[in-house]
């Protein structure tokens, strides 16, 4: 790797963020290209760490010295007695995530050169974008919980700032609660921040509890590697009955950040930000931070729980992760089937796919519980992370191109764009097929590996005698397959309505006014093409990926071969997948592609489907529930506290205090008669008092 690569791959974007306002003073072009350059340089540093993972040891390229073997830590100890340090960890998971963040970040920065061209607030945009990339890489490459939490908070802050980026817009707002669109955007940013905050608090409690436990047992640390090796902290937590709550709270952070149920309500509103922001933060990177955290702690938990004979905790944790993941995937897919806006469909799709990743990691944990091996699920989850990042970014960037060209968000106002934007059409089509899991695109391989992992879990569970877990495995597999069907449904719906349907009135109106719809500029469609290419060949990278991720895992027989691909195709789950694709694809084809059945008429005819449709459209009423019960209730509570406590007690106390002092001083004023004789008396008496004190005191 290049020297100091782990430090610089997050340091350079942060420095770039800080320098952006300075560059802005010179020239606009300098600022734009400078910001993009910083992120590209950071990515190069990140890339330089990849060969070291394959080699198994870290080699400095400039001095040709071997610095250490994987996992390689480089740290600066701050307070050694408290175990607080700042450090980076070079390890397959962190390098992989850093490259995803850095690579997609750089690509999207290049795209943003075209998309955000001419915006007056670009300095703020570049600052937060670079700061975000730096924060995300810091998050994934940290070697201890505390620093990771710092990165966690940085990405939360940048996400808030970037969602509410256009807070000055003056157009009327899409919902009636706010006056202008600017206010609505600001509200979306705040909603995202506060909802993820709930998860962050849970995560912080968990981190601090683990730290306190390590403090009590005499070796305070936040470090991942050290937590993995020492086991006394687990024993102490179990002795106090705190183990299960702690690890469930630890999962609370990912629930918030990765928009899982029940904290998933912020992601659709977060689409109010610019599309590049949505692509980077809410499709490719920040929402993956939760998945990263679960993937990071899962091996730690496996090792320490095995060492202390507490594998029940591992089972509970994995069960929670898997169930929440599966339920979220199902929930979001149903919502995505009926959404009207392009970006909202993609947002629901993101929530759903991250549910898949959590499901995979949970399955890995459960497999570890029954059979002692988590490699399958772990690998499936992280592979799906990579392929999803690529195709989701592709989809968002294409959506951005479409939004840029047509200036509307509603899908039903588009149509017939196939002839105007051919390159975008092809790229988005590839992305949608990859999302749905159609062979031979990368989405197919990653989804298949998840199903495969679930199948293996079920088999191993029955083999080792855990019948309930086996049944759970089958149920999870079933939910995942149904969700795959729905995924294909809404993907086809998306593509068809935008590109295949005839032109809507809105488009015709625009054409009459002379605003033609043109293809995106090269600076925008070149990243699309790159991402589409990776989506196509991504599946073939699976063997290399397995070698990469599972390097150093002693129990797995790892070698680069195409056996993995063959195994994936020939497992029994392939039939389920094909069945699901048929279940989802055929109705979608009839409704949307060939337009044999009109969806509106269908809804009117069948009341049951209409009710279901309205239920899904209102987001299962979860959002309304939160707003009315939690937010509304809290506001009522604060008003009541204000009225009955603040005004009645505290204000009255203040007034009473002031009244006492004032009346006392009014009374005492009467002694100030201004009369010299009287002053004399007082002076003499004072002297006598002093005399007495001096003589006898």
């Amino acid at each position, binding site marked *: 790797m290049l020297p100091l690569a782990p430090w610089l791959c997050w340091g350079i974007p942060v420095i770039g963020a800080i320098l952006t306002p300075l560059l802005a003073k010179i020239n606009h072009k300098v600022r734009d290209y400078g910001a993009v350059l910083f992120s590209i340089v950071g990515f190069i540093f990140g890339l330089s760490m990849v060969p070291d993972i394959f080699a198994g040891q870290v080699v400095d390229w400039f001095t040709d010295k071997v610095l250490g073997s994987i996992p390689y830590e480089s740290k600066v100890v701050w307070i050694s007695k408290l175990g607080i340090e700042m450090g980076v960890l070079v390890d397959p998971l962190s390098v992989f995530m850093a490259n995803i963040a850095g690579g997609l970040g750089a690509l999207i920065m290049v795209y943003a050169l075209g998309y955000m061209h001419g915006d007056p607030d670009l300095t703020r945009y570049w600052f937060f974008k670079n700061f975000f990339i730096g924060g995300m890489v810091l998050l994934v490459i940290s070697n201890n919980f505390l620093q990771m939490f710092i990165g966690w908070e940085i990405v939360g802050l940048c996400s808030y700032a970037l969602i509410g980026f256009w807070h000055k817009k003056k157009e009327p707002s899409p919902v009636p609660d706010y006056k202008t669109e600017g206010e609505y955007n600001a509200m979306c940013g705040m909603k995202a921040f506060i909802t993820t905050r709930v998860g962050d608090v849970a995560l912080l409690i968990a981190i601090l509890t683990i730290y306190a436990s390590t403090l009590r047992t005499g070796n305070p640390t936040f470090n991942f590697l050290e937590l993995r090796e020492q086991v006394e902290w687990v024993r102490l937590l179990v002795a106090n009955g705190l183990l299960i709550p702690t690890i469930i709270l630890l999962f609370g952070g990912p629930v918030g950040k990765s928009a899982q149920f029940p904290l998933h309500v912020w992601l659709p509103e977060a689409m109010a930000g610019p599309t590049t922001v949505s692509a980077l933060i809410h499709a490719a990177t920040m929402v993956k931070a939760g998945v990263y955290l679960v993937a990071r702690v899962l091996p730690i938990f496996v090792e320490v729980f095995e060492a202390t004979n507490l594998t029940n905790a591992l089972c509970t944790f994995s069960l929670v992760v898997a169930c929440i993941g599966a339920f979220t995937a199902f929930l979001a897919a149903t919502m995505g089937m009926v959404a009207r806006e392009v970006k909202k469909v993609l947002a629901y799709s993101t929530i759903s796919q991250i549910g898949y990743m959590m499901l995979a990691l949970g399955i890995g944990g459960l497999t570890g519980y029954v059979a002692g091996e988590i490699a399958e699920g772990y690998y499936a989850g992280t592979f799906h992370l990579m392929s999803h990042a690529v195709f989701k970014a592709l989809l968002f960037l294409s959506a951005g191109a479409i939004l840029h060209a047509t200036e509307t968000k509603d899908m039903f106002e588009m149509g017939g764009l196939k002839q105007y934007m051919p390159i975008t059409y092809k790229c988005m089509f590839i992305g949608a097929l990859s999302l749905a899991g159609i062979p031979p695109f990368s989405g197919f391989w990653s989804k298949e590996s998840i199903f495969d992992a679930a199948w293996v879990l079920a088999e191993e569970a029955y083999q080792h005698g855990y019948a309930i877990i086996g049944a759970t495995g089958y149920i999870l597999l079933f939910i995942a397959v149904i969700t795959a069907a729905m995924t294909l449904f809404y993907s086809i719906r998306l593509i068809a309505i935008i590109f295949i349907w005839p032109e809507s009135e809105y488009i015709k109106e625009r054409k009459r006014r002379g605003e033609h719809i043109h293809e995106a500029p090269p600076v925008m469609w070149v990243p699309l093409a790159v991402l589409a290419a990776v989506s196509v060949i991504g599946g073939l990278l699976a063997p290399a990926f397995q070698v990469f991720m599972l390097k150093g895992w002693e129990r797995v027989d790892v070698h680069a071969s195409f056996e993995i691909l063959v195994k994936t195709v020939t497992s029994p789950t392939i039939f389920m997948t094909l069945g699901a694709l048929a279940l989802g694809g055929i109705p979608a084809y009839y409704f949307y592609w060939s337009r044999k059945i009109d969806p509106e008429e269908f809804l009117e005819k069948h009341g049951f489907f209409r009710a279901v449709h309205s239920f899904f459209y209102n987001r299962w009423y979860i959002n309304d529930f939160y707003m009315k019960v939690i937010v509304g209730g809290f506001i009522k509570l604060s008003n009541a506290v204000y009225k009955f406590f603040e005004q009645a007690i505290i204000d009255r106390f203040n007034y009473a205090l002031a009244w006492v002092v004032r009346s006392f001083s009014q009374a005492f004023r009467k002694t*100030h008669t*201004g*009369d*010299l*004789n009287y002053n*004399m*008396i007082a002076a*003499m008496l004072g002297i006598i008092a002093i005399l007495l004190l001096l003589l006898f005191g």
Partner: protein
Amino acid sequence: MIGLNWYLAASAILYSIGLYCLATKRNLIKMIIGVEILLNAAHLNFIALSTTTAGLDPLARTYVIVSIGVGAGVIALALSLTLLVYRHYRTLDVRKMRRLKW
């Protein structure tokens, strides 16, 4: 020679006469007379206490001499201020000079 107590008592009575004058009289000149009586009482006290059967205390005498000088200076200053005040207020009644009271 009579005992020390007589002189101490005399000093005390003189002191209280001076205080009484300050506390009661309305005329500014009378008040300055009261101050002077106070000072004299203090001097008498010093001298009386410095005359013991064991010997004379020169330090107390010295202090008294200095204090007499200082006291004269104080009275001179007070009288000049009285003059100025009289020019301004046209009266010497202390109770009418209340401009500094809030």
